[in-house]
C-alpha cells in the first residue's frame, strides 16, 4: 500500500502497538547478546582462526603443549579440592545450625558470613606474613621451642602455593555453600525424615536415603558457584604467587599488547569446560527434587544442645570463622604497621600508609574509579535484573525463561573468559576499539560488572517476588491502579528489602571485582581498587605491602558496610541471592 502524508510511518505504528514489556524484554536480550554472547563468540572465533581462516591449528598446538595441559589439570584439581573441602566443612555446620538450637547461634551463624565480604584476593596479601620462612607461624613455633630459626633452613609452608590458594578460596567461598545448604535444609519438610523414621529407618539411613538426595539442588546451587569461581579465579593465585593455573596463563597473555589465537584457544577450552561442568552439575545434582513445592506440615523446632554440645558448636564454628578472618586480620595489621620484620606482631603502629593512600592521586583515583564503576553497574543491574525477575515471576512472558537463562549464564562463564572476549571484541581495528582497554574501558568495565553480577539481582528479586502473593498486585489493579501504579505502590515497597540487599551485594562485589578489572583496566588512570592493589603489591616500593594492604583495608570497609546493611535488611533471605 502506498503511504500517504497522514499515515504514520511504519515503525511508529509498530511502536505504538508494541507492549512496553516486550520492548523492554527485547532490549535486555539485545544487551546480553551484544555484551555477553558477542564477545564470547569473538573469543571463540579468534581461537579457531588462523590467518583469517577457520582452523584447529591453535587447538592442536594447545593439546600438544604439556605445560598448558598441566595447568588446565591444576585448575580442575583446584576447583575439585576447594568444592569438596567446602562441602565437608559446610554440611555439618548447616545441619547443626538448622537442626539444633544453642546459645549464641545467631551471632555465630552471622559471623559465618563474614568471609564473604573478605575477598581472598585481599586476604592473600598477608599470606606470606603468616606462612613465609620468617612468617608468624614459624616465629610462633620458635617461641614455643619447636623450631630453631637461626640454624638451617626454616620450613616454607607456602610450598608451591597450590594448597594455600585452595585454602584461601575455601575460606572465602564456603559461606556461599553454607547459605545454600542451610536454606535447603530449613525448607525441607521435617515430615520427610519423620516418615522414614516412622517406617523403621535409623538416623543415618534417613540422612543417606532421604535428606542427602533432597539436598542435591541446594548443593548444586552453591557448589556450582564455588566450583566455577575457584576453577577460574586469578586474584588469589596471583597474590599468592602460584601461577601454574590456566586462568593465570590467560591473564598473563591477555596483558600483552598482541594477543594471538594461542590465548583464545585456551579461552575456548576453559569456556567449554566451565559450561560443561556447570551443565554436568545441573544434570547430576541440580534437577528439582520437587521437595521445594511442598508445604511444611510441622514446624521444625530445633533440638536444644546441652553444655557440651554448645561448647562443641562454638569450637567448630568459632574455629572456622577465626581461620577465615585470619588473613584479613593480617591485612589490617599490615596496613597499620610501621615496622614488621621477623616479629610476631608489628613493632610499631602507624596510620601513615592509610593516610598516604587517601592523599596520593593514584590510589585515590582508583577508589573513585571503583565507586563510579560499581555505582553505574549496580544501577544497571537493578534495572535489568528486576525487570527480568518481574517478567519471569509475574508475567510469564514468552521468552522470559530464556531471558532468565541468559542472565544466569554468566555464573557458568568465568570473568577472565568474558574479559578475554571483550579484548577480542575491542582489538585494534575492530568496530568497538574506542571502548577498548587501551582507550577508555569505563563503559566496558561497567558492562562487565553488570553482566557478571546480574544473576545475583535476578535471584534476589525473584525470591522477593515469589514471596508476595500476586493477588496483592491484582487487588491494586482491581481498585483502579494501572500496571505501573500497582508495581510502584505495592510491589516495589514490598520487595524493597530484596532490591536494596541485591543492590548492595552487587555494589560490594563490583567494588572488589578482580578478573575483569585486572584484565580490562590497562591504563593507570582507569584502574579500579583491585588493579591498584595488584600494582602496588608488585611495585618495587619498600612499603609496597603496607600500601596495598591499606587499599585492601579501605575496600573491606566499603564492602563490610554494605553487606552488613544487606544482611540486616534481608535477614534469612540473604541466602537466596547466592543461588545458581
Amino acid at each position, binding site marked *: 500500500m502506498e503511504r500517504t502524508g497522514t499515515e504514520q510511518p511504519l515503525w511508529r505504528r509498530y511502536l505504538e502497538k508494541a507492549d512496553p514489556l516486550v520492548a523492554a524484554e527485547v532490549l535486555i536480550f539485545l544487551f546480553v547478546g551484544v555484551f555477553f554472547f558477542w564477545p564470547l563468540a569473538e573469543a571463540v572465533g579468534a581461537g579457531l582462526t588462523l590467518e583469517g581462516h577457520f582452523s584447529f591449528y591453535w587447538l592442536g598446538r594447545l593439546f600438544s603443549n604439556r605445560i598448558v595441559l598441566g595447568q588446565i589439570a591444576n585448575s580442575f584439581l583446584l576447583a575439585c579440592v576447594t568444592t569438596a573441602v567446602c562441602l565437608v566443612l559446610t554440611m555439618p555446620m548447616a545441619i547443626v545450625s538448622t537442626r539444633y538450637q544453642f546459645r549464641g547461634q545467631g551471632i555465630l551463624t552471622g559471623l559465618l558470613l563474614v568471609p564473604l565480604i573478605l575477598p581472598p584476593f585481599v586476604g592473600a596479601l598477608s599470606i606470606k606474613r603468616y606462612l613465609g620462612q620468617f612468617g608468624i607461624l614459624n616465629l610462633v613455633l620458635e617461641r614455643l621451642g619447636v623450631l630453631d630459626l637461626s640454624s638451617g633452613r626454616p620450613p616454607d609452608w607456602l610450598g608451591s602455593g597450590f594448597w594455600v590458594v585452595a585454602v584461601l578460596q575455601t575460606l572465602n567461598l564456603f559461606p556461599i555453600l553454607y547459605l545454600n545448604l542451610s536454606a535447603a535444609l530449613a525448607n525441607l519438610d521435617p515430615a*520427610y525424615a*519423620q*516418615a522414614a523414621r*516412622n*517406617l*523403621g529407618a535409623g538416623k543415618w539411613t534417613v540422612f543417606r536415603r532421604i535428606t542427602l*538426595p533432597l539436598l542435591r539442588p541446594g548443593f548444586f546451587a552453591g557448589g556450582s558457584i564455588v566450583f566455577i569461581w575457584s576453577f577460574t579465579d586469578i586474584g588469589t593465585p596471583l597474590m599468592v604467587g602460584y601461577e601454574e593455573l590456566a586462568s593465570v596463563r590467560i591473564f598473563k597473555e591477555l596483558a600483552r599488547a598482541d594477543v594471538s589465537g594461542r590465548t583464545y584457544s585456551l579461552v575456548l577450552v576453559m569456556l567449554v569446560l566451565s559450561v560443561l561442568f556447570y551443565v554436568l552439575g545441573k544434570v547430576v545434582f541440580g534437577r528439582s527434587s*520437587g521437595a521445594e*513445592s511442598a508445604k511444611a506440615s510441622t514446624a521444625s523446632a530445633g533440638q536444644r544442645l546441652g553444655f557440651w554440645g554448645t561448647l562443641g558448636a562454638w569450637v567448630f564454628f568459632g574455629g572456622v570463622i577465626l581461620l577465615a578472618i585470619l588473613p584479613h586480620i593480617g591485612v589490617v595489621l599490615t596496613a597499620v604497621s610501621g615496622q614488621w620484620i621477623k616479629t610476631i606482631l608489628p613493632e610499631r603502629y602507624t596510620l601513615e600508609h592509610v593516610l598516604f593512600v587517601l592523599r596520593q592521586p593514584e590510589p585515590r583515583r582508583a577508589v573513585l574509579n571503583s565507586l563510579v564503576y560499581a555505582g553505574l553497574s549496580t544501577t544497571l543491574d537493578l534495572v535489568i535484573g528486576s525487570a527480568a525477575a518481574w517478567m519471569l515471576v509475574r508475567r510469564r512472558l514468552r521468552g522470559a525463561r530464556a531471558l532468565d537463562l541468559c542472565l544466569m549464564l554468566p555464573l557458568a562463564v568465568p570473568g577472565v573468559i568474558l574479559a578475554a572476549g571483550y579484548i577480542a571484541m575491542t582489538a585494534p581495528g575492530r568496530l568497538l576499539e574506542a571502548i577498548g582497554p587501551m582507550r577508555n574501558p569505563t563503559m566496558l568495565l561497567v558492562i562487565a560488572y553488570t553482566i557478571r553480577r546480574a544473576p545475583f539481582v535476578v535471584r534476589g528479586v525473584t525470591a522477593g517476588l515469589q514471596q508476595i502473593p500476586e493477588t496483592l498486585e491484582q487487588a491494586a489493579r482491581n481498585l483502579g491502579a494501572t500496571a505501573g501504579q500497582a508495581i510502584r505502590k505495592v510491589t516495589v515497597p514490598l520487595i524493597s528489602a530484596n532490591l536494596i540487599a541485591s543492590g548492595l551485594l552487587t555494589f560490594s562485589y563490583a567494588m572488589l571485582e578482580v578478573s575483569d578489572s585486572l584484565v580490562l583496566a590497562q591504563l593507570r588512570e582507569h584502574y579500579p581498587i583491585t588493579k591498584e592493589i595488584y600494582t602496588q603489591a608488585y611495585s618495587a616500593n619498600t612499603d609496597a605491602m603496607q600500601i596495598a594492604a591499606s587499599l585492601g583495608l579501605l575496600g573491606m570497609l566499603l564492602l563490610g558496610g554494605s553487606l552488613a546493611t544487606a544482611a540486616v535488611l534481608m535477614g534469612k533471605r540473604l541466602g537466596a541471592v547466592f543461588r545458581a
Partner: protein
Amino acid sequence: MIEIRLEGISKSYAQGAGSGLVLEKIDLVIEPGEFFFLLGPSGCGKTTLLRILAGLLEPTSGRILFEGRDVTDLAAEKRRTAMVFQNYALWPHLKVIENVEFGPQMRGVEPARRRQIAMEKLAVVQMEAFAQRKPNQLSGGQQQRVALARALAAQPQCLLLDEPLSNLDARLRAKMRTELRRLIKESQTTAVYVTHDQKEALSMADRIAVLCGGRIVQIGRPEEIYQRPKNEFVADFIGEANFLTGNLLQTNPVKIRTEAGILASEMKTDRAAGSGVKCCVRPEKVQIHDKKDFADRNRPNLLAGTVQSMAYYGELSQIEVRLNAGVVWTVTVFSGQAEGLSAGTEVLCGVNPADVIVLEG
C-alpha cells in the same frame, strides 16, 4: 492387631510463652483392630498425641503400652507404627514404588519380596499403574492412596493417620471416607485417626475420643457421642445443638423448668431437684407445627415460638424459631414439611422426651 494403652500421658513445652501444657493426663485403651478417632478443634492436642504414639515426640510423663509392652522410650523407627501424614510426606526424589518399598526394606525384606509386597499394596489402593511415577506427577487423591499403601506395606502394628483427607476437595473427601474405612478394616490393623472434621469421625470411626484443651472430654461410639453428648462442648462441636438452661423440677423422671417452658427427659441424672441444669436438643429432633392448625395442646414438651427466618437447602430446610424468653432454636425438617411456614408464623416446637439430652456441668 495390637491393643494400645495410654497411661497418664502429659506433654508440655518448657520454652516459649504461655502455659505450654498441650496434653493433660490422657488415659486411653484402644482395642485390637479398632478404628479409633481422635477428634477435636485445632490446638486440642490430638496431633501431638498421635506423634507421641509414633515416637516422633516424647511425652513429658506417662506410659505407652503396645500389647502390654512399654514402648514409651522406644525410638520411632523401632515402634512399627506407620503414619499417613497430613501432606502425605511422599519423598519427591523416589518413585511411587520406591516410596512404598521403603518400609519393608527397612525391615530387611529381600528385594524381590518387597517389590511384591509394594505392588500388592499399590493394587489394594488401585495405584499399581502409577508405580513408576514420581509423587509430584500424581493428583492429591492419588498421593493420598500411595501414602496409605506405603504405610500398609510396612505391615505395621498400628496405623496412624493425621488428617489424611484434609488436603482433598470436598467431593473426593466424601468418596475417600468410605473407601479408607473399608481398606483399613480389611487390613485388620489397629488404626488411630486424627481429624477435626466431625462428619469424618462419625461416618468412619469404631470409637471416637473427643479432645478439648489437651483433655479427653468423651469417649464412645459415634451414635453415643452424637445422641448422648456429655457436655455443651461435645454437643456443640459435633453436629448442631439447641440449648436451654433451667432448674430441675423433679429427678425421676426428669423434668426441667426452662426459660421457654417445661421439658421432660428420659435421661437419668444424679443431681438433686432444684439444681440448675443445661439441656440440649438436636435440630432434626424438633417437630414444628403451625400453631393455628395444632389441636393437641396438652401434649408435653411443647414450646411456643415464632418463625424468625427460613433457609432452603434442597431436601432439607432450616428454620430459626424464636422461643419465649428470646431463645432462638434451629429446627431442621424435610423441605415438604416446611410448606405454609414463613417468617412471623406462630409455631409450636415439640420434642420427644427421649431426645432431650441433659448435659453435665
